[in-house]
C-alpha cells in the first residue's frame, strides 16, 4: 500500500508543474498561465502545517491527542463524522432533489406533457370517428350536403351583399 501512496504523492506534488495550458485550450492557442506566490503560500502552508500536526500526534505515544479530542467535545464528533457531508448530501439528493424536483418532473412528463400528446392523438381519433358516418357512399346524402352548402353560401353572400 505504501508504494501506490508514494507514487500518488509524488504525482500530486509534480503534476502541478505540468503546463496543461499548453496542451488544452478552447481555441487551439496556448493558454497563458502564471504562478502567483502570494496566492499559493497560504494553502501550501496550511497543508504542511496539517502534515506536521498529524505527524506529531500520531507518531507520538503520549495521550496528548486524546486529551485535545476530549477537550474539543462535539467538534471532535463532527470531524469524526466528516462534517456530516455524506448525510447532508443524502438528505439533499434523496429528500429534496429526488422527491421535490425529480419525481414531479417525471410525473409531469408522463401525465401532463405526454398526456397532452396522447390527448391530441385521441382527439384526432374521435374526430375521425365522428365524421366517418359522412362517408356513407349514399349519393343522396352527398347531394343533400352539397345543397346545404350551396344554401349556406348563398345566405352568406346575401348577408354580405345587404350589409
Amino acid at each position, binding site marked *: 500500500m505504501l508504494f501506490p501512496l508514494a507514487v500518488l504523492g509524488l504525482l500530486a506534488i509534480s503534476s502541478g508543474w505540468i503546463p496543461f495550458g499548453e496542451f488544452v485550450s*478552447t481555441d*487551439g492557442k496556448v493558454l497563458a498561465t502564471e504562478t502567483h506566490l502570494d496566492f499559493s503560500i497560504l494553502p501550501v502552508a496550511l497543508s504542511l502545517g496539517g502534515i506536521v500536526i498529524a505527524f506529531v500526534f500520531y507518531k507520538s505515544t503520549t495521550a496528548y491527542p486524546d486529551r485535545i479530542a476530549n477537550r474539543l467535545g462535539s467538534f471532535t464528533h463532527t470531524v469524526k463524522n466528516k462534517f456530516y457531508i455524506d448525510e447532508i448530501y443524502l438528505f439533499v*439528493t434523496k429528500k429534496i*432533489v*429526488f422527491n421535490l*424536483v*425529480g*419525481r414531479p*418532473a*417525471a410525473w409531469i*412528463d408522463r401525465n401532463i*406533457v*405526454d398526456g*397532452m*400528446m396522447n390527448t391530441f*392523438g385521441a382527439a384526432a381519433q374521435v374526430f375521425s370517428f365522428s365524421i366517418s358516418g359522412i362517408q356513407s357512399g349514399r349519393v343522396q346524402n352527398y347531394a343533400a350536403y352539397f345543397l346545404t352548402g350551396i344554401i349556406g353560401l348563398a345566405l352568406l353572400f346575401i348577408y354580405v351583399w345587404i350589409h
Partner: protein
Amino acid sequence: MMLTILILLPLLTALILAMSNAKASRTVALAGSGIQLLFSLLLLQNYLTERAAGNTALFLFESSSAWFPALNINFHIGVDGISIAMILLTASVVFAGVLVSWKIEKMTKEFFLLLIILSAGAYGFFISLDLFLLFFFLEVAVIPKYLLIGIWGSGKKEYSANKLALMLMGGSALVLVGLIGMYYNSGNSFDLVHLSTFHIPFYIQKIFFPFLFIGFGVFTAIFPFHTWVPDGHSSAPTAASMFLAGISMKLGGYGCLRVATYLMPEAAQYYSGYIVLVAAIAIIYGAFATMMQTDLKYINAYSSVSHCGFVLLGIGMLTKTAITGAVLQMVSHGLMTALFFAAIGMLYERTHTRAVKELGGLMKMMPFISTVFFIAGLCSLGLPGFSGFVAEMTIFVGSWQRSGMFYHIATILACMSIVVTAVYILRATGQSVMGPVNNPKFLTLTDAHWNEKLAAGVLIVGIVAIGVMPFWLNDLVSPGAEAIYNQLSRFALLK
C-alpha cells in the same frame, strides 16, 4: 461522384440483402456497413486533401443534375466539414449497430435491410444541397423506424412505433410547410446555395422559421415534443435505439442549423431567446426527469432529451463557438448514446432485465461490458478525456460569449445540469454493475463476444479521439460553423 457512391453503397447493400438468404444477410450487412465506414474515412481524407490544397469553396464534391425540372428540383449534393462529421458518425453507428445485432434471429434479412435503408436516408440527408431532396431523405429515414420498432421491438412496441412515426411525421409536415414557404418566396427555388444568397423578406422569415425549427426540432426532441423519445428508444431493438438516438436525433439538429438558421438568419436572431429558453428547459427538465427513471433504456432516452437540449442551446446562442459546440455535441452524443444503448442491449441480452434495481455486481462476470457501460456513462456526464466534455465545454464557452443577462442565466442553468447528470449516471452505473451480485443466475453469465467488442471499440475510439484530440474535429467543423455565423452577421446588418 464520391457522394453519389456514398448513397449507392447502402442501396447496393440493400439490394444484395434483398436477394440473399437469412444466414448470409449478417455477413452482407457487415460487409456493406464496413465498406461504408471505410468509404466515409476515404471521403474524409479526400476532403482534407482538397482543403489542404487550398480549395476554399463552402461545399466540396458538389454535383447537380435535374430531377424534376418543372418544379426546379435538382439532385444537388455537396459536403462541408459538418456534413463530413455527420457522415462519419452515421457510418460508425450503423457499423456498430450491425455488429450488436449479430444474433438477431427473427426475420434477419429484413431487419438488416431496413437498417441499411435507414443509413441511406441519413447519408442522403447530410449531403443534400437541394431542400426537396433533403426532405425526401428525411422521410426515407423515418419509415423504416416504424417497422423496426413495430416488428423487432419489445414492451409496448406498437404504441411506441405509432407514437414515434406520427410525431416524426408531424415534424416532417411542419418542415414541408416551411420549405414550401421558402420556395414560393425565393423565386421558386429549393437550392440551398441559391437560398443562402437570396434575402427572404424578414416578415416571411418570421412566419416560416418556426415551422422549420419546430419541425426539425421534433426530431431532436425539442421540448415539449420529445415524448416519442422515451417510448421509442425503450421499445426499439438495440440497433434501432442506437440509430434513433445516435443519428436520427441529429437529423433534426442538422436541419435546425443548416436549413432554418442558415437560410433564415434574421428570424433565427429574432427567435433566438425562445430557442434558448426551450433548450434550457429541455436540459434541466430532461435531467431531472431522468433521475427518477428505473429502466436503463428510459434513463438513456431521457438523458438524450437533456443532451440534445445542449445542441439547441448552442444553435440558439448564435455565436461561432456555440454553433461549433452544437455540432461537436451532435457527434459526441451520437457516439456516446449509441455506445450506451449498445451496452444496455448487451446487458439485457444476458440478464433479460433493464431494471436498475434488479441488476448489480455485473462487473465480476462481465468486466468488458461493464467497462463499456462505465465509459458511456462517464462520457455522458462530461468527464475530461471523453468527447462529452469537449462538446459541452465548447457550448458553455460559446454561450457565455452571448451578451445579455438572460443568456448568461440560461448558460449557468445548463452548466448546473452537469451535477444532475452526474447524480443519475453514477447512480445507474454504480447500481447496475458495482456492488454485490443481486441475482445468483447472473453468476453464470458470460462477457462480450467478438462482435460486441468490435462494435464498442469503434464507438469508443471515436469518443476518446475527440476527447483527447479535440482539434481534429474542431478544425473539420469550424469552417462550416463560421459560414453559418457569417450568414447571421451578414443579415444582421440588414435589420
